[in-house]
């Protein structure tokens, strides 16, 4: 081959061991890929990475690159050591939105792969932590070509910057018996309602939708999403007493007592003398623990919906926040239900866009202005499910207590 391969003694040490090596994969692109452009680009990428390992420094810097008509979706990367590694000196990432649930037909994967080998380095991540397919490594011109081609057959960019970001959802209804809502529908409906806000960053900061079909939250929605949906149900959980007995027979009473009955956070369970299970459904908080231990015997009820938690995010700026319950139960059955879900998201984003400071995530704004002001802003009444306990400090003015109490009783009477 007509180029000198960089020595990579440090990276080579990541080729040993039983876990699949990303370095071996990358090296094969340098050595075996039919395109000489890719061979050379990857060679310089490896050279720069080895240089990082030697010096313990990163050498990428950002910049501005976008495709025609969009303001986000590309993560620009320019090398600070491009003189030594010219072939990979521009190495942008294209963020592409996956289908909800990360399902793929191989035909579409291959089609995406072919386009990427034509216009980029071939290197791809399934998936980045933001939920996107990350196509890693192309220059400014070919970024546009790649996007044009894949956009033509149905793929769109994800979000980057202060915008609505790519959404994520658990596998849920597609395969999981715990699923209490159509996660993939919720994911697509929500994010696609905001395509404009995905592609044209103009919000105070990022805004993420993530959907999990139950409290197990396989999607980590409550800790990573400004708008987290967690499936739940409001009637009684379904108990197949014969299956309960079968578990008791198989595992023993001690196991069931130690691992099911006493582990319920609200003491909603007891084992009857005849080895059937007693569930106090009004105490149950749908934590999913007992269903996880006995998936054959216990199932979510029929009256399913979602709990919506607002304001989850990671560390910056006031520390990690879990989402707060803002809608304890949202039924999602009719078209109107789904429409009102989208309206709720619009109301929240509008209020946040208007009231947040620069760089303020929705959860941080709620912390600053108070949950009550946020609720009033989006037109939602306070509910005890939103808190873990009422206020502790008596140093507060309650000028409108009587009105607030009346409103509460009026709502109660209506319900």
């Amino acid at each position: 081959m007509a180029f000198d391969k960089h020595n990579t003694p440090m990276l080579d040490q990541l080729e040993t061991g039983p876990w699949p090596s990303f370095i071996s994969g990358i090296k094969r692109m340098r050595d075996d890929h039919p395109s000489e452009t890719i061979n050379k680009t990857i060679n310089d990428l490896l050279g720069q990475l080895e240089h990082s390992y030697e010096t313990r420094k990163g050498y990428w810097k950002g910049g501005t690159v976008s495709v025609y008509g969009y303001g986000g979706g590309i993560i620009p990367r320019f090398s600070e050591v491009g003189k030594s590694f010219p072939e990979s000196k521009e190495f942008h990432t294209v963020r592409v939105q996956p289908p909800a649930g990360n399902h793929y037909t191989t035909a579409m994967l291959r089609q995406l792969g072919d386009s990427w080998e034509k216009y980029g380095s071939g290197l791809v991540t399934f998936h980045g932590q933001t939920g996107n397919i990350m196509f890693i490594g192309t220059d400014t011109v070919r970024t546009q070509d790649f996007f044009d081609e894949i956009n033509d057959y149905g793929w769109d960019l994800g979000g980057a910057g202060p915008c609505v970001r790519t959404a994520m959802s658990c596998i849920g209804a597609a395969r999981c018996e715990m699923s209490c809502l159509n996660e993939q529908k919720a994911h697509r409906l929500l994010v696609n309602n905001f395509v404009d806000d995905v592609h044209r960053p103009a919000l105070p900061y990022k805004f993420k939708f993530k959907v999990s079909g139950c409290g197990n939250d396989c999607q980590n929605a409550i800790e990573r999403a400004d708008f987290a949906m967690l499936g739940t149900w409001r009637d009684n959980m379904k108990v197949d007493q014969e299956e309960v007995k079968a578990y008791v027979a198989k595992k023993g009473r001690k196991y069931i007592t130690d691992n099911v009955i006493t582990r319920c956070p609200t003491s909603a369970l007891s084992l009857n003398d005849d080895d059937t299970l007693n569930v106090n459904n009004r105490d149950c908080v749908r934590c999913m623990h007992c269903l996880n231990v006995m998936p054959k015997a216990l199932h979510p009820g029929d009256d399913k919906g979602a709990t919506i938690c607002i304001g989850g995010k990671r560390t910056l700026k006031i520390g990690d926040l879990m989402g707060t319950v803002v809608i304890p139960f949202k039924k999602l059955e009719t078209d109107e239900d789904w429409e009102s879900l989208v309206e709720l998201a619009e109301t929240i984003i509008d209020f946040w866009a208007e009231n947040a400071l620069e760089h303020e995530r929705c959860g941080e704004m709620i912390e600053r202005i108070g949950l009550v002001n946020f609720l009033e802003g989006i037109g939602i009444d306070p509910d005890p499910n939103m808190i873990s306990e009422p206020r502790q400090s008596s140093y507060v003015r309650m000028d409108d207590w009587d009105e607030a109490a009346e409103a509460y009783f009026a709502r109660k009477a209506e319900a």
Partner: protein
Amino acid sequence: MSESTMGPRNQGAPDYNLHLHPMMAKNYGKWDHHERLKPGVIRYTAESGDNLYVVRAGSPRTMSPATVHKICDIADRFCDGFVRFTIRCNVEFSTDKAENIEPIIKAVKEELGFPIGGTGNSVSNIAHTQGWLHCNLPATDASGAVKALMDDLIDEFEKEEMPNRVHISTSCCQINCGSHADISIIVQHHHAPRIDHKNMMICELPKVVAICPAAAIRPKMMNGATSVEVVEEKCMYCGACHGQCPSMEIRDADTDTLSIWVGGKASSTRGGPSQMKLAVWGIPNNPPRWPEASDAVRKILAAYKEGGKPWERVGEWIERIGWAKFFEKTGFPFTRYHIEDGPDALTTFNRSSHVRL
């Protein structure tokens, strides 16, 4: 290209219905139960009685086109041309034919070299970030540290012998793109950013000032041009400013270290979600294989495996045995830095007579 003049089509997320395995499409929302047949293999049974078998394999996350094509080859042969990825970057091969399970396992091991596992009470694949390979902020290489760590933990990926599932994440700067996890490795810096006044990008000035969690950044004139200064006493070396402005370099190859945090959990099971807490700090940032980081993670996992009760996640195990025991079992020091001094500090103090003696 001519297409670009047409402008983008704004499709958003593609239609998942086009990508669902036929068995998933048929039984969508109508699944009844599942059973783990062995580590890495799960049978899902629908209300209709249909069975779907899923084989889960660990991937290196960032892959070459050849690897993606091999994944597709296997999915074409055994999975009707469908494949999916989990959020922990595992690949899932689904089939409605039990007799396909062993051939899939064989093909995955031989053709891809991927391990089978990551289900149930295993240590699943590590949720990680880009590192030196591609990000503009990293002080370490998440992919490399993850590869070395998973080499060490592959046994625990292939078995289901932990008290409960274990999620690990790594982040290569304190923006923490990696998620909350039972065990999380995060970079820590040791001094304030060094400001390159000559190269200050004034355009982003208000944003840089606004982003500092400690309000430590002030605008300042330097040699007649607008720049910023950092109030040393306030700065806590988080590097948030560096994310905003490349001229506020926070990384330092000589001093950056790694820290380990434990007890994060997103799921609402039992006590509900919980955030990670500091376990140990000052672990050398030691490429290419970060042996000290692997060692520390091993220590935590060994103690948890030995002492955790069934269904207890790492954080729940520690809560039960107490932090004193945790430090004793792992051999990590308990220092003044473990005591919170942030706004929520009071809620983290022991304000009862409960002590473990």
